[in-house]
């Protein structure tokens, strides 16, 4: 019976293939880290988002608590509307402070949340009122030079 050994090999082949896909998605990828089915969506308006991109992490105390799902430009307020999908295990007070930060010197940008002291929690569809824009290098250098010039004048 040649057929049965062949079946065995093909079965092994398929199992190895599926195992390879599982290894890729679980060990190499981050399938288990973040489950979007249990999440709630909040938005925040930022004056300048710098290099923030869709899929960037939302972190609080360094822990990933959500992801940026959408970035739009609003013609009513002329600023950026960032939509975040948050893990529903983590609730934040209404007066949470959101700022755009950079991981490392040249790393990717993410949204950092600092919890406030409000009793009421942010619900799905709510908007974060307190935001802080991204640091833009040119503005920072400009401000530094301006301060320097003002300092020199005073002497």
């Amino acid at each position, binding site marked *: 019976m040649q*057929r049965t050994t062949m079946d065995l090999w093909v079965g092994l082949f398929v199992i190895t293939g599926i195992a390879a896909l599982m290894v*890729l998605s679980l060990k190499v*990828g981050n399938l288990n880290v973040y489950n979007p089915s249990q999440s709630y969506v909040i938005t925040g308006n930022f004056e300048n988002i710098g290099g923030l991109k869709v*899929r960037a992490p939302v972190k609080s105390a360094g822990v990933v608590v959500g992801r940026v799902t959408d970035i739009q430009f609003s013609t009513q307020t002329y600023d950026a509307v960032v939509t975040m999908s948050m893990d529903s295990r983590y609730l934040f007070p209404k007066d949470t402070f959101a700022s755009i930060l950079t991981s490392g010197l040249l790393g990717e940008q993410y949204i950092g949340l600092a919890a406030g002291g409000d009793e009421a929690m942010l619900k799905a569809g709510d908007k974060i009122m307190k935001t802080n824009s991204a640091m833009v290098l040119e503005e920072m250098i400009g401000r530094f030079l301006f301060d320097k010039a003002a300092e020199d004048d005073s002497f």
Partner: protein
Amino acid sequence: MLKHIVPGIQNVGHRVIESIWRLGRASRFFILVLLKSGTSLRRFNLVIRELYFTGVLSLIIIVVSGLFVGMVLGLQGYETLQKYGSESAVGTLVALSLVRELGPVVAALLFASRAGSAITAEIGLMKATEQLAAMGMMAVDPIARVVAPRFWAGVISMPFLAAMFSVMGVFGGYLVTVVFIGVDEGSYWSQMQSAVDFRFDILNGFIKSCFFGVAVTAIAVFEGYDAPPTAEGVSGATTRTVVTSSLAILGLDFILTAFMFRGVS
């Protein structure tokens, strides 16, 4: 002067028209294979037999080349990244380049030369020795009995082979950078896991390899079925299979990448 130019232009025109004819035949043949694949899916034993020849026997070359490609990526990536003091990102480099591009593409190129050429040679020789005609005489449809099982076996085995290639590559990169050079093991895996996304990287790589599987096996079975029934014809068809499917893989890869990763960082 004109005597020499006119036949040259005629020759070019003849080749262009001939290739358009072939493309039309190939498309019609592809539709025919899809229409007649119902029988081969019902008699799945035929597909399993071909899976053994195209999939299982390609395992060795896929696994070994995946391992070596990963090891080279690890070495080269380490050499470059340690200049910037970020050698812990080598896991990200190895995993992303394998899962997104090298896994599907190199596995498909190997598959085309390992299994695609074999399929063409087999079908071409069957045609040359009039086995296909004999089947037709016995009211057995050669496309349903011979071509469709080979086509489906190739389509099924290609994504699995690409996934194994990527896994072996990641393991090879781990072997070189972590075990031999001494990059921190934790940062190798954790940086990789935070950078590789399931939907955007792994699923897109999987979709790519499915497309490549269809392209390679469709080209291979068509070239075999269309080969002139001579020894020379079969050898020419085998060469054409490897050349055409390699070009098709690289061209398709560009188109798919442009669709998948445009606007996504």
